[in-house]
């Protein structure tokens, strides 16, 4: 049984079926790609899986539990986190606090202790945040505000925040958008490292080099439906995919 199983997942906006009966699995420990042209329904799929948009039909099972009706924060606490295309950083918090806010889930009554002893924090969360900062080469910037950083760094922070709580599955919505070739390659290496550490990833991106390099398995969607699901080598030669999506650019790029 896969870690994440979407079955017949359908999302409608008015009369438009943005996601139409999508079946998609993420096997534990895999790096799964999700690609498709603009407007194919990739972000809608991430929104539906993470509870940000209601599904009209179908079910989402995560780690053996049906989470179709759970709210976004409950899904996050169950180990399912995401990044946003538009980053959505906590602009009022430093880089470290951005990660800490996502890493610690104190009980509601922790407030009473915080009033007296503010610096007490869960050592596990703090250690984990330090590790991630170190792994992503952000330690030097830990005490800066996001607004002071470049676009590439801000994108890294949004990815780092999604990893902060040691989740089982992270859905990455275009983490490489706006990164230059070197940054994109470095991100690929990093994602592989994370997957090898045991975290499952679903990667949505338009950088085909990145997706085909790092993914173990790729799903292609178009007009809200899955049109192919196979390892990269197969997708690369899938006629339907080439015609529907990759088109001539892919051929030129590869030759």
């Amino acid at each position, binding site marked *: 049984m896969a870690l994440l199983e979407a079955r017949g997942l359908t999302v409608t906006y008015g009369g438009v079926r943005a996601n139409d009966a999508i079946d998609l699995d993420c096997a534990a420990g895999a790096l799964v790609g999700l690609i498709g042209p603009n407007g194919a329904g990739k972000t809608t799929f991430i929104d539906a899986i993470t509870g940000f948009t209601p599904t009209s039909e179908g079910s989402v099972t995560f780690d053996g539990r049906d989470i179709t009706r759970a709210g976004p924060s409950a899904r*996050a*606490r169950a180990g399912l986190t995401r990044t946003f295309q538009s980053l959505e950083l906590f602009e009022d*918090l430093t880089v470290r606090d951005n990660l800490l806010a996502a890493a610690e889930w104190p009980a509601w009554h922790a407030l009473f202790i915080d009033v007296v002893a*503010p610096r007490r*924090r869960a050592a596990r969360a703090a250690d984990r945040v330090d590790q991630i900062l170190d792994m992503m080469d952000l330690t030097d910037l830990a005490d800066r505000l996001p607004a002071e*950083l470049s676009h590439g760094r801000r994108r890294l922070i949004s990815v780092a*925040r999604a990893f902060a*709580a040691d989740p089982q599955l992270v859905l990455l919505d275009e983490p490489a958008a706006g990164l230059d070739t070197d940054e994109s390659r470095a991100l690929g290496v990093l994602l592989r490292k994370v997957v090898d550490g045991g975290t499952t990833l679903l990667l949505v991106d338009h950088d085909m080099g990145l997706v085909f390099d790092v993914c173990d398995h790729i799903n292609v969607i178009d007009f809200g439906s899955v049109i192919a699901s196979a390892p990269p080598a197969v997708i690369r030669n899938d006629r339907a995919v080439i015609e529907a999506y990759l088109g001539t650019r892919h051929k030129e790029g590869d030759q």
Partner: protein
Amino acid sequence: MTDYLFFLLLGSAAGAIIAGFGLGLLITHQGSGVVNFAFGAMATWAGYVYADLRRGAYPFPIPGLPERYHFAQDVGFWPAMLLAMLTAAALGLLVHLVIFRPLTQAPALANIVASIGLVIVIISLIDQRFADNAGLRVGPILPREPVTIMADVTVPRDGLWLAALVIAIAAALWVIQRFTRLGLVIRAAAENEKGAVLLGYSPALLAAATFVGASVLGAFIVIMASPMIQLSSTVFTFAFLIPALGAAMVGRFRSIWPTVVTGLAIGMVQSSFTKLQGDFSWFPQYGARDGLPFIIIIGAMILLGERLPDRSAVSTWKLPAVPAAKVNALTVVVPIATAAVALLLLGPLWRGAIMTSLIGIVLSLSLVVLTGFGGQTSLAQMAFAGVAGFTLSKLAIEWNVPFPIAPILASVVAMVFGVIVGLPALRVRGTNLAIVTLAGGVAITEFVFKNPKYVGDASTGGAQIPNPELFGWDLGLTLGDQASRPIFGIFMLVIASILALAVSNIRRSSSGRRMLATRSNERAASAAGIDVARVKLQVFAVSSFIAGLGGCLIAYRFGSVSESSFGTIASLTVLAVAYLGGITCVSGAVTAGLLATSGVAFYGLTQATGSVGQWEALIGGVLLIVMAVANPEGIAGGIRARLAARSSAGVIV
């Protein structure tokens, strides 16, 4: 049943006023994006101008100038109407140019603060220029002779006329909105200002036009209603404004007919409450009228509100930046020691000013948690404070609960009220939340504070409060023949210091991080596993608890509690002053406390310049406006920004 019809029809005048005000709020919002909390106050001034002209005088609103220009006699209906309308138009234009236009890009809260300043200015002007308010009777304008609708139902005709006028105005506005290019452009500008620019219209001009139009409309309604409803500085300012906000909300500040229908319905249903109170013993004698708009507003929110803002709405409610808390000897010991020495050595008047400032600090701290950390708004802080004050009296006098326990329990009760008023925050945010809490605060004021069952008999000084006493040691302000005992000041200082430390501890803790994360970005916060609903209720709980303690300090200081200390204007002023001091940090709360009316800064000013006496409230209001326009992010924020600009030019890494 005909009795009910009678009361419903009798309420048509009130309904028409509410509907008309709702339209005015709608127009202003469509043209400028501003919810003008001073709309009722502006219209009231024009109403007074008309009334004054009918007795042969034109009032000047500027202190120092002659109070009025005297005509020989009543100038007559049309000249008075014309002059009053021109005054309203000029006021609308002035308010737009001087206050709201400079604040176009400022945080929405700065707009609210400026409009609160404007309300305070206008109310104090009215109180100064029309001190003999009771003598101001306005002769009939609309036909009055009773009309018999059916057997047993005979009502004065003027209320129905007013309703008809408002419906006609609504129809005209609807035609403009639907079928003219101007209406189209205004609707387009409300959706997207840049779009209007591309169509070749200046948003500033549109905003100015809608401010003038709305101001004239409000003035017209107040003048037409003034023969039916005795003018006063508060009736149109709040009593009709709040239901009008509710009506405009049902129309989502853009649909004319839902606004008008809701407005008329509120007025008519409120009127029938008089009958219900007579017929049914269980019907609440107090607060039902003001509870109704609150319930309607909440209902509108639940039906129309969104749980999480969508992609485009994230940044519309900007708030000032939050500095890191700096807790060290310089920031903690020095201010506390200075205050302690001043309390012990200075005379009773200075001591009184310091005590006022300490109360101001506590109340501002409650808003630092709520707004500064949590990103929520409350225009009901003094209502929470008042709940604690009255509860304290009950606990201490009737049930003999001893000192430290009674105020804490009383503040817990305030906290419960705070959470209830804060519940709508789970679905609404920003200016809409400000409206909900304003209505909630007024409902509490009417339902609890005016009810003799809870507050005792006002003629005997209201609810009594015994002195705080710890281990047999009396901490009260007065004891026997001793007045203004410094020990009470020290007691307040200790409470304020503990709360200040607690608030800065919250800022530095994991709870504070989650509050700031929620304030920064609710979508991202819930994606990060933060239970946004819980955090919001938490900040409302903490904030209203602190406000409750502030209310207890007020109660201890005066030895009794009465409704007048905890009114709506007090709630508005507390938010405005806290915002200007700097709503995101403890040092801002201290600044706010020092700036509070009758606090240290004010007392120092009166000492330095001689008495400002009767104009104190007006000067306070003008200062609020000036400071809001000059420092839209608060004084502390402004200073920080200037320091940051000097030290480095924001290096991007």
